[in-house]
Structure formats: structure tokens, C-alpha cells
């Protein structure tokens, strides 16, 4: 039983055109910048927004298409909304039981199932607490339990971790991963956070301006970005160019030497940690060396990220010690060096 | 020059001072508090008075006699009070707000009012005792209700009203809309209501005649004009206007 969707929605000047398949048990993450159409896709799948064109079907049953539209309340779905949208006047237990009651489960049974779900997300003791008294992490877990309690075929997660602080996020992300692993249905995760997508999803779809620009397993996407946006997300230096053997003429100016020979249009990617900085031109060894100017310096995790203008422009991660040794300041002229073996070249 | 004076009086409003010019002519503003049932006739009389006394300006405050009496007792600035009932005039004389002896300038008597075509077939007071018919009367607290009570006592009829209205106009509204089959109102009201309401006279009416007294206020801002207006209402010309509206002469 596979969920297949051709999502075509036109709203004003924006239009979404996204083909999507999700297998049973699979978690697909839709990753993209704000305004890319992620939420539109999610709302269309939920039935909150009818398609302009296209089709949504789970196995043989059509949810949306030219000849049918199943309203949201009749779709076997569960949605976790960005700010959870827990019903403020209902207790945690009543929130979780809401979907079951709405779908006709008797009150006592609905409460039993809801209580089980609260137990599963570790909130046994909070059954009668109103949402406003729950912490962010607790509210998120109630929202997840509410979405899963009805046993949906499709689980839609809309930025499920965005409202949490960094510390809580780490823990809730891990828990969410466990629940998703147990879940046999289809999951679509919408997020703009690459880490959420990498950790939680089996497959990523990168959405930009209403179109899928890249799709694949997280490791593949992380290693071989195909757009500047993806490269930025996964934190790689990324260039397009034309390869002739081990030399690549970059589209934006500059030239890089690569380890494996290639021909034609290629992408080149390498991590900022692969970049070394020198105050004078270094000599020897097969590496790329070119003059750069410091454009910006900012702390980045345990290292310092240096933005450098030049041909090509490049990001370099250097240790704090290096920053001190070189007495880095914006405007300084330096030499950047990258070993050919540290670059990764792949066809466009 | 006179135009300027009138304008000044208009600007200064109802508290305009008495202004009798050297020749004894009446000028200035006159404020008259008059019962609601006098609205049409007094508006006409006001115009006639202004025409007869160039330089005067008559302003009216029409309302329920009892409400007007209370306003006067509370010091409302007025020159003349024309009441629909001696009782309300007494309220004002009791407090010495009026010291002149009030004079009766008109009389009114009750008539049966029925909707056009008289669907309820009410032709006598006895018809008011029929609980199956919709009947409107004035509340006893207002003059027309007190008068109605009197005629029913005289006629030895116990009426079965469905509503006791706050004033004659409210009763007439219900008759003209056909909501009630019959009502007791003043003869002048039937006349003023036009062709949607028909009047039926009855014998006992003459035994409950309502007198309309008029008097100038003791502290009338324009005492001369106040006296002149009272005289004008009592004059033949005044009586002719009142008579045409259905009022009886005192």
C-alpha cells in the first residue's frame, strides 16, 4: 500500500508541482526554505486545501483528483501541527481521545486507548492536565499521541520540533525517531531544519519554489548537494563547473584541481574543514592554492567559520588557535588551500 | 433691526428675555409646554400667533401632561403650560410654579375607535366586555385611561382589555394596524388618525368630559408674550382651530 500524489496547487503567483510517493513505514522529509510550498503540500495531503490539479491516492482509494474529493475528516490521517493546536479547554487525555470519539469510538474505550497513548509518550501522570500547564516538550508529545491514537494511514508532521528550545529538541527528536520507527503507516515530515530531516527521515525531498530540486537518502543528499540551498543546509562549499580531466573551470570564476578525472559539467563539494589558511603562499603537494580576502568571521560550534572572498569564494572552518596565530580580521589577505583528495566531484 | 433682534433671540435660545417694545408690541420667544394630544392644533396656533405678532417665535415641547408637569416642577424654562388634564395642572399650581388661575380652553370626550370597516362589530361600550375581542385601553395612570374608567363605571360595563397602553397615540397605532378590534380614545384622536380608524360615538361619553387647562408660568421668561399666547388660544380664532380638530368648547 503506497501513497502516491501529484500535488499541483496554484495560488496567486505561487504554484506547487510535486510528485510524491511514500511507502508503508517510510518517513519522507520535505525540506525547503520558507515559502517553498512545504505547508501547501502538507495541507493538500490533509485535505485542508483542495488540489488545483493532480491526484492523491492511497493504494486504490483516491483522496483527491478530478473525480473525487475526500474531506479531511474522512481521510485516515493524523497531523502534528507546528504549534500543536491542542484544544485548550480539554485535558491532555481528552485531547488524545478527541479523534477516537470523533470517529465513533465509545467514550470509555476512547479514554482507555488515549491513556495507553499517553503512557507510550511518557505522560501517564499528566492525563488531566490542561494544555496551558504542559511544557513545550510535553505538549509536543500529547500532539503526537493525539495524531497517532486514531491509527492513521498517513502521519503528517508540520515542523514538529520548531517550537522547542535546543535542549528539549534533542531529547524530543530522539523520542520522535523511536515512535516513527514503530509506526507502520506512511509519514511525511515537513521541516526547514536539515538536522531534523537527516535524523528522522528515510528519504529527503528538497523543495524550492514549489519544485523538488533534489531527492534521495539523507546521506546521499548530504554528500552530493545539487543546489546552493542544499549545500548551505548541509554546510558544504559547493561549485558548478566544467571538468577537463583533473582540472575544473568553475562557472563563477576560478579553477580547482580534483583527484579523479572527469569530463563535462560537474558539481564539486568539499567541507569547510578541508580548507587551510596561510598568511603566505604555501608550496609543495598537489593542492589548490588561491588568494582570498577575509569577508567575515563567526563562531561555529567549536571552531571558527571564516567567509572568504576570492575566485572562488569559500568557507573555511579553522581552530581558535589559528585565528589567534593569523590575527584574522576582515579585509586581511590570505591564501586558501584545499587538497584535491578532499574534494568530491559528481556529474550535474 | 428687528431681524437682528429675532436672530439674537434665536441664538440665545429658549431663555430669551421678555422684550416688549415701547409701543406695547409683543416680541421675542415663547416656549409652550403642551400635551401631546395638542400637537397638531398648537403647531397651527403657533404659526398663526407668529403671523399676528411679527417678531415672535413660538417653540413647543409636546409630551405626556404628567411628564411635562414634572419637568416644569424641576425648573424647566417655559412660558406657557397647556395640560390635557386638570390633575396635571394641579401638580404645577400646588408647587406655585403656576400662580395664575388656569383657564379651560378646550374639552375633549372619549369615542370608540375601531379599525376601518369595524371588523369586530363594536358599536357600544358593552362590546368591550367581550373577552373574545381584542381591546386596547389607556392605562389608568394616564388621563385617557382615567376617563375610560369613569365611562365604564357609568355604563356599568366591566371591560376585558388585552392591553393598557401608555398613551393615546400607542392605542391608535394598534387600532390603525388592526391589532385590536376596539379602543377608547379621544374624539380628536379619531379625527387626527385619518381614514384607517373609524369613530363610534356613545351616549356615556358626555358624562366624562375632559377639560384642557392653560396658564402662563409664574416665572415665565417672556411674561408678556406668555399672556398674549394664552389669550390667543382662548380667542375666537383659537377656538376655531381647536373646534376644527374636534375639540369641544368650554
Amino acid at each position, binding site marked *: 500500500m503506497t501513497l502516491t500524489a501529484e500535488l499541483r496547487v496554484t495560488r496567486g503567483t505561487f504554484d506547487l508541482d510535486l510528485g510524491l510517493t511514500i511507502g508503508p513505514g517510510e518517513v519522507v522529509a520535505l525540506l525547503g526554505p520558507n515559502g517553498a510550498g512545504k505547508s501547501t503540500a502538507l495541507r493538500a495531503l490533509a485535505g*485542508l486545501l483542495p488540489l488545483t490539479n493532480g491526484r492523491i491516492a492511497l493504494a486504490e482509494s483516491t483522496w483527491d483528483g478530478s473525480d473525487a474529493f475526500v474531506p479531511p475528516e474522512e481521510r485516515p490521517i493524523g497531523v502534528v501541527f507546528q504549534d500543536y493546536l491542542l484544544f485548550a479547554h480539554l485535558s491532555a487525555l481528552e485531547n488524545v481521545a478527541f*479523534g477516537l470519539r470523533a*470517529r465513533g469510538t465509545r467514550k470509555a474505550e476512547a479514554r482507555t486507548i488515549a491513556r495507553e497513548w499517553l503512557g507510550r509518550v511518557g505522560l501517564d501522570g499528566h492525563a488531566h492536565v490542561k494544555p496551558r500547564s504542559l511544557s513545550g516538550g510535553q505538549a509536543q508529545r500529547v500532539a503526537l499521541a493525539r495524531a497517532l491514537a486514531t491509527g492513521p494511514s498517513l502521519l503528517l508532521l508540520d515542523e514538529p520540533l520548531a517550537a522547542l528550545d535546543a535542549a528539549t529538541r534533542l531529547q524530543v527528536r530522539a523520542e520522535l525517531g523511536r515512535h516513527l520507527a514503530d509506526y507502520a503507516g506512511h509519514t511525511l515530515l515537513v521541516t526547514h531544519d536539515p538536522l531534523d530531516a537527516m535524523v528522522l527521515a528515510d528519504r529527503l525531498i528538497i523543495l524550492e519554489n514549489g519544485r523538488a530540486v533534489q531527492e534521495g537518502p539523507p546521506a546521499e543528499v548530504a554528500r552530493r548537494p545539487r543546489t546552493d540551498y542544499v549545500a548551505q543546509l548541509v554546510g558544504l562549499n559547493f561549485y558548478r563547473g566544467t571538468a577537463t580531466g583533473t582540472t575544473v573551470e568553475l562557472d563563477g570564476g576560478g579553477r580547482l584541481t580534483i583527484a579523479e578525472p572527469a569530463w563535462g559539467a560537474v558539481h564539486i563539494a568539499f567541507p569547510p574543514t578541508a580548507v587551510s589558511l596561510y598568511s603566505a603562499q604555501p608550496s609543495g603537494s598537489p593542492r589548490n592554492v588561491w588568494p582570498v580576502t577575509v569577508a567575515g568571521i563567526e563562531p561555529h560550534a567549536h571552531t571558527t567559520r571564516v567567509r572568504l572572498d576570492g575566485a572562488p569564494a569559500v568557507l573555511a572552518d579553522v581552530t581558535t588557535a589559528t585565528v589567534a596565530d593569523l590575527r584574522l580580521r576582515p579585509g586581511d589577505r590570505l591564501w586558501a588551500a584545499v587538497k584535491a583528495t578532499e574534494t568530491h566531484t559528481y556529474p550535474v | 433691526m428687528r431681524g437682528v433682534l429675532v436672530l439674537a433671540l434665536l441664538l440665545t435660545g429658549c431663555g430669551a428675555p421678555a422684550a416688549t417694545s415701547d409701543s406695547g408690541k409683543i416680541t421675542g420667544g415663547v416656549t409652550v409646554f403642551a400635551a401631546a394630544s395638542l400637537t397638531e392644533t398648537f403647531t397651527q396656533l403657533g404659526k398663526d400667533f407668529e403671523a399676528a405678532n411679527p417678531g415672535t417665535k413660538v417653540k413647543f415641547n409636546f409630551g405626556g401632561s404628567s411628564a411635562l408637569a*414634572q419637568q416644569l416642577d424641576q425648573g424647566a424654562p417655559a412660558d406657557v403650560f397647556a395640560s390635557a388634564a386638570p390633575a396635571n395642572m394641579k401638580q404645577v399650581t400646588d408647587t406655585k410654579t403656576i400662580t395664575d388661575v388656569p383657564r379651560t380652553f378646550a374639552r375633549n370626550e372619549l369615542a370608540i375607535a375601531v379599525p376601518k370597516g369595524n371588523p369586530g362589530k363594536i358599536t357600544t361600550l358593552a362590546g368591550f366586555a367581550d373577552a373574545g375581542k381584542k381591546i386596547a385601553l389607556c392605562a389608568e395612570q394616564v388621563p385617557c385611561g382615567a376617563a375610560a374608567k369613569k365611562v365604564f363605571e357609568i355604563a356599568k360595563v366591566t371591560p376585558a382589555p388585552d392591553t393598557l397602553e*401608555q398613551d393615546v397615540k400607542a392605542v391608535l397605532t394598534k387600532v390603525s394596524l388592526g*391589532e385590536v378590534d376596539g379602543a377608547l380614545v379621544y374624539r380628536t384622536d379619531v379625527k387626527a388618525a385619518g381614514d384607517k380608524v373609524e369613530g363610534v360615538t356613545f351616549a356615556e361619553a358626555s358624562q366624562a368630559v375632559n377639560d384642557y387647562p392653560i396658564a402662563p408660568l409664574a416665572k415665565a421668561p417672556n411674561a408678556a408674550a406668555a399672556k398674549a399666547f394664552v389669550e390667543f388660544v382662548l380667542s375666537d380664532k383659537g377656538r376655531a382651530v381647536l373646534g376644527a380638530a374636534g375639540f369641544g368648547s368650554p
Partner: protein
Amino acid sequence: MTRRQVRGRLPVVLVLPAVLGLAFLLVPLAGLLVRTPWTSLPTLLSAEVGEALRLSLVCASLATICCLALGIPLAWLLARSGLPGRGFLRALVTVPLVLPPVVGGVALLLVLGRKGLVGQYLDAWFGISLPFTTAGVVVAEAFVAMPFLVISVEGALRAADPRYEEAAATLGASRWLTFRRVTLPSVLPGVVAGAVLCWARALGEFGATITFAGNFPGETTTMPLAVYLALESDPDAAIVLSVVLLLVSVGVLAGLRDRWISGPS
């Protein structure tokens, strides 16, 4: 001068008019209380007054229930449906607010009266005649008071986040269930506030009531009508009746306030 003092001080430009406003509202009431002939109170509190008071409370409450039953769906329609011409409809809903109540009463007679557009059929087919009945009082009060409820509830609905309704839909709730279990509870404060306004307006209603339902003790004489007629003959009695109505309504509203508005559990 510490920062705390600066922040704690209330600006005179707000406080002065606020105090004047309060005085403007309260001084007339004080005037009533001062003039009340308290000693004659027992003699004036007749069975008829009790009857008028009971009728007032019953009719105002029934009118409020009618307004809730019809007004909440109307507010929902105005706030949530994509109905064309909603702005115009919203303006029409407020007509009873600007219409002089007596005119409203006449309008009701023209429609629901014995010879009215609808009333003539009610009379002919079902033998129902609303004027001069207690039901007529309820109708007149509901007509005048309903805009208060509709405006209040519509405002609350428009301020409420419609995404909660979407969340309910994704959980399988029909629109009716969503309305009952999600929308209505979320706008409850607006509904309560509207109902209180509605009830207060109905309780004080005079013009439309006396015009449409007339005035007959025990059947259609509510307190405001009794007060008005008492004013014609015995101003002292009128003051006492007003004060009784005032005390009862303030008591009821204060009770409701404690229970519903400021005391959420």
C-alpha cells in the same frame, strides 16, 4: 525618582477622563438612590410589583435563550462562511440597535401582528397571535437584544484561530462536532459576555415591548413598563420600582460574573 515609580504612575490624561466617565455613569444612579423613599418601600412592594419583576426576569431569560439559539449560528455564518455580501449583512444585523425601539415594535406588529405579513397566517393556520401575550414580550425583547449577542460572538469567532477547527477536521470531526466541541468552547467568554449584554438589554427593554406586546398586568407588564406608568401617577413609586429592578439586575450580573467571567477553574 526610580524607574518603578515612573512605570507605576498612571497617566493623568487617562485617569481624569476615566474618573469623569465613571462619575457620569454612577451619579444618576446615586441620584435615584438618594431620592428613594425607603420608608415607603414596604407599602410599594405589592404583589403586582413582584409579578412584574418575575415576568421581567423570566422574559429576559427566555429572550436570551432565543438569542443564543439563533444568534450564535448567525454569528458563525457572518464570521466563518464565505457568504457574499457579509459586510452588508453585518450592517443589517445592527439595525435593531439604531432603530428606535418603538419603531422596532411597530415593525414587529407589521410582520407578526394579527394582520401582519406573517402573523396573519400564524393566526389563520395555527391560531397563534403574539401581540398582547407573554410570548410577544419575549419576541420584542429578543428582537432588540439579539444584535448585542451576535456582535459579541462574531467578534470572538473572528478573533479565534480557525486552525483549531482544521486540527479537529484532521482528527475526523464533522463540522457540527467541530463547532460544538472546539469552536464554541473557544469563544465561550464572548458568548457569555454577549449573553449578559443581551439579558441586560432585554431586562430594560421598554419601547418595543409596549408597542408589540402591549401592557397588561401579569401577562405583559414588565418592570420597565410598570416604572413608566408609575411615573405618570406616582413618581416615588417609579423610583422605588427602578431601584428594585436595578438591585436585582446588578445582583444577577455580579453573581454571573463571579461564576463565569472572572472565575475560571
